[in-house]
C-alpha cells in the first residue's frame, strides 16, 4: 500500500530517526540559604565584587521602596517595582563592559542601567511624567525604558547587527519578562538575531507573573530557555536570584557573542515580589503562600547570608550600608524633584530635527490649533475677531 501518507500502517511501522535532540541546563551556584558551590563558582565573582554588587542591591532595593512611597504620597505617577529581581539585573549587567556594550531594557532592571552609568534619578523622572528621564546622557550605552511589551528586543537585534556590520567588538544585552515571550516580536527578534548571528544576549527575567497571568497560562513549555532551541541559539536556565549563576551565564554568552558566536538566551528564574505596578493589587490573584515562599529566596537575604558566612558582612556593616543607602536615595529623590518643570515648547521641539514644519511652528508659537486671526489677509476674520 502506497500513497496513504500518515494513515498508512506501513508508514508508522517504519523506523524513525532522531532529527534533533536538545537539553536545557539549569545553573545555580549560590542556593537560597547562602551556600556556594565552590567548583561552579570558580572564576566567577571575587569577594570584592560580590560585596560591591550586594551593596548596590541594598541601595537600589531602598530606592525601589522609596519610589513606591513617592507614588503613594502623590509625588510620582505609576511605578513598577523591581523588588526581588536585583540579582538578575546586576549579575547580567556586571558581565557586560560598561561604555562598550549596550543595554536595551524593559522596565524591571533599573539596577542594570545604574551599573552602566544611568543617573538613577532619570528613572524617577520617567515615572514622574518627564521625558527628560529618557534623555540618556552621552556616553551611557542604553535605551530608555520600553513600555510596549516585547518590542524592544528587535532594537537590540538591530543594534547588535550594526556592531557586526562594522566589526566592532561590542555586544547588546536586552531584558524582558516571561510574558514578553508570547509576543510575535520576541520570535522575530530571536530569529533576526540568530540568522544574522548578531552579538546579542537575550535575558528573560522569568518573574512568574505578567500582571495577573502566571507563567503556566502564559506558555505550555516547561522552561522559557528551551525556546532558544528553535532558533539554533544556546539557551540556559539559571537561578535568577543568584548573582554567581547569572554572572557566569552572562559572561559565557557575552564572550561567545564577542568572539563571533552569535546570540544567546538566558532565562533567569526569579520572582516579582511586589505588585505589577503601583496601580495593581496582586492580592487579587496571587496565593500569599507562594509569595511567602519566594521571600525566602530573596536575593538580598541570600547574598547577605553568604557574605556573613564568609565573615565579610555583619550587622554593623549592614546598618552602615542602610544609612548610606538612605542618604544616596534621598539625593536621588532630590535630583528628580528639584528639576524645574519642562518647557511647554519641548512638546513640539523634539518632534523633528531642525526647523519644524510651518503648521507645527504655528501651533507651538500660539498654543492654538484654530487658525482665526493668524492670517491677516483674511480681512473678514479680523473684523470678526474684533467683535468679541
Amino acid at each position, binding site marked *: 500500500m502506497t500513497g496513504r501518507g500518515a494513515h498508512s500502517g506501513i508508514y508508522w511501522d517504519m523506523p524513525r530517526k532522531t532529527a534533533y535532540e536538545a537539553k536545557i541546563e539549569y545553573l545555580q551556584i549560590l542556593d537560597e540559604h547562602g551556600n556556594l558551590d565552590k567548583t561552579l563558582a570558580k572564576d566567577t565573582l571575587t569577594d570584592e565584587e560580590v560585596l560591591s554588587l550586594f551593596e548596590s542591591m541594598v541601595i537600589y532595593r531602598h530606592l525601589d521602596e522609596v519610589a513606591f512611597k513617592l507614588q503613594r504620597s502623590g509625588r510620582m505617577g505609576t511605578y513598577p517595582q523591581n523588588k526581588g529581581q536585583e540579582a538578575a539585573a546586576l549579575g547580567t549587567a556586571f558581565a557586560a563592559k560598561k561604555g562598550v556594550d549596550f543595554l536595551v531594557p524593559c522596565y524591571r532592571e533599573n539596577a542594570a542601567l545604574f551599573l552602566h552609568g544611568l543617573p538613577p534619578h532619570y528613572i524617577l523622572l520617567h515615572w514622574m511624567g518627564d521625558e527628560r528621564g529618557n534623555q540618556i546622557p552621552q556616553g551611557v550605552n542604553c535605551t530608555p525604558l520600553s513600555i510596549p511589551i516585547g518590542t524592544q528586543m528587535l532594537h537590540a537585534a538591530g543594534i547588535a547587527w550594526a556592531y557586526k556590520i562594522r566589526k566592532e567588538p561590542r555586544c547588546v544585552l536586552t531584558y524582558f519578562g516571561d510574558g514578553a515571550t508570547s509576543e510575535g516580536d520576541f520570535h*522575530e527578534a530571536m530569529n533576526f538575531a540568530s540568522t544574522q548571528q548578531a552579538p546579542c544576549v537575550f535575558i528573560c527575567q522569568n518573574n512568574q507573573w505578567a500582571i495577573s497571568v502566571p507563567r503556566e497560562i502564559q506558555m505550555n513549555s516547561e522552561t522559557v530557555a528551551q525556546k532558544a532551541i528553535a532558533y539554533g541559539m544556546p539557551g540556559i536556565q539559571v537561578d535568577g536570584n543568584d548573582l554567581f549563576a547569572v554572572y557566569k551565564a552572562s559572561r559565557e554568552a557575552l564572550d561567545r557573542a564577542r568572539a563571533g558566536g552569535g546570540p544567546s538566551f538566558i532565562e533567569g528564574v526569579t520572582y516579582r515580589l511586589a505588585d505589577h505596578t503601583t496601580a495593581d493589587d496582586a492580592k487579587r490573584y496571587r496565593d500569599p503562600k507562594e509569595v511567602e515562599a519566594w521571600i525566602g529566596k530573596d536575593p538580598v537575604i541570600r547574598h547577605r547570608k553568604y557574605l556573613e558566612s564568609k565573615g565579610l558582612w555583619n550587622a554593623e556593616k549592614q546598618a552602615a550600608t542602610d544609612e548610606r543607602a538612605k542618604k544616596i536615595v534621598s539625593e536621588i529623590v532630590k535630583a528628580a524633584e528639584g528639576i524645574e518643570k519642562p518647557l511647554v515648547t519641548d512638546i513640539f521641539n523634539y518632534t523633528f530635527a531642525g526647523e519644524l514644519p510651518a503648521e507645527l511652528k504655528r501651533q507651538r508659537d500660539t498654543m492654538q490649533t484654530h487658525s482665526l486671526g493668524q492670517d491677516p489677509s483674511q480681512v473678514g476674520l479680523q473684523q470678526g475677531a474684533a467683535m468679541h
Partner: protein
Amino acid sequence: MPEMNLVQAINHALAFEMERDDRVVVLGEDVGLNGGVFRVTEGLQARFGAERVVDTPLAESGIMGSAIGLAMAGMRPVPEIQFEGFLGPAYDQLVNHAARYRSRSRGAITIPMTVRVPVGGGIHAPELHSDSPEAIYAHHPGLKVVMPSTPSDAKGLLLAAIRDPDPVVYFEPKRVYRSFKEDVPEGDFEIEIGKAKVVSEGADVTVVTWGATVFQCLAAMDAMPEDVSVELIDLRSIYPWDMDCVIESVRKTGRCVVVHEAPKTCGFGAEVSSTIQEHCFLNLHAPVQRVTGFDTVMPYYKLELEYLPESPRIKGAVEQVLAY
C-alpha cells in the same frame, strides 16, 4: 541625462547613496539576490554585498524593529515593506517606536530610517496589494511621509529621505513604476521634503493630488475644453505638506478639487480641504470637492478602475466646481 522609469530611478538613487555613504543598508524580503519583487533593488546586492543588501526573514515587524536598532546604532537603514498591505505587522514598531523616539528621548536617540513601500492600485494585483494608507502615517507625529510620482522626483526625494535625520515613509506608486520614462538628473540633488510641485499653472481651478492620480488628473485636463485653465499641484510630500503652495493657488483660483486613491473619510484630502477653508475662506467661489476612493474595502482588480478616481470622475468634479 539618462532616461529612467520610476523603478530605475529609485534603484539608481539607492546605488548613488550606498556608494556615497557606507552607513546605508538596504533590508527586506527578497531585496537581495532577487532584486525585490518589483526589481527596485536589482543588482544592488551584487554591487554592494550581502552585508549591505540583506534578504531578511519574512517578518515585517522584524524588518522595521531591527531597522530601528540599526538606525539607533548609527546606520542609515532603508527597509522595504513589500506591499503597503503588509505594513500592518510593522505598524507598532513604526508608530510606537520609530515615530516617537526623538521626542520621548528629548533628542538623545533618533531614528534616521527610510521605509520604502510600494503603494496604490491599478496594476491588477491580488488582495491587499493595492491600498493607499498614506493618511494613516501622516497622522502620526514624528513620521514624514512622501509619495513621488515621477522618476526625477523619486530620486531627489529618496536622497533627501535617506539623509533626513528622522524616519521617512517613502511610498512608491506601483502604477507609475514602469508607466513612462523621463530624463533624471545625474549626480547629487535633493528635493526638499514638504515642497509641492506645480505641474501646470492655471487660473480657474486648483487640482491637488499626489502619486499615481497625478496622471489621471492630467488625462482629465486633456479632455477638458482649451479655455479651462487648471492649476495642477502634485503634493509629493504628504507630511509635512506644502500648505503655502496650495493656499496661494486657491486664493488665486478660488476653486479646488482634491484627488486621491485612498477612501474619502479621513483621507488626506480632508486635511487639505479643511486647511483651505481655514486659510482661503474669503477667496472661495465654490465648496472644495474631493474625488477619492470610496469608503469601502479596496475591491479585487476586476472593479479597481471603478473604485479609483479615474479621469472622467475628476473631470466631472472640476466641471461642477467651475459651474458652481
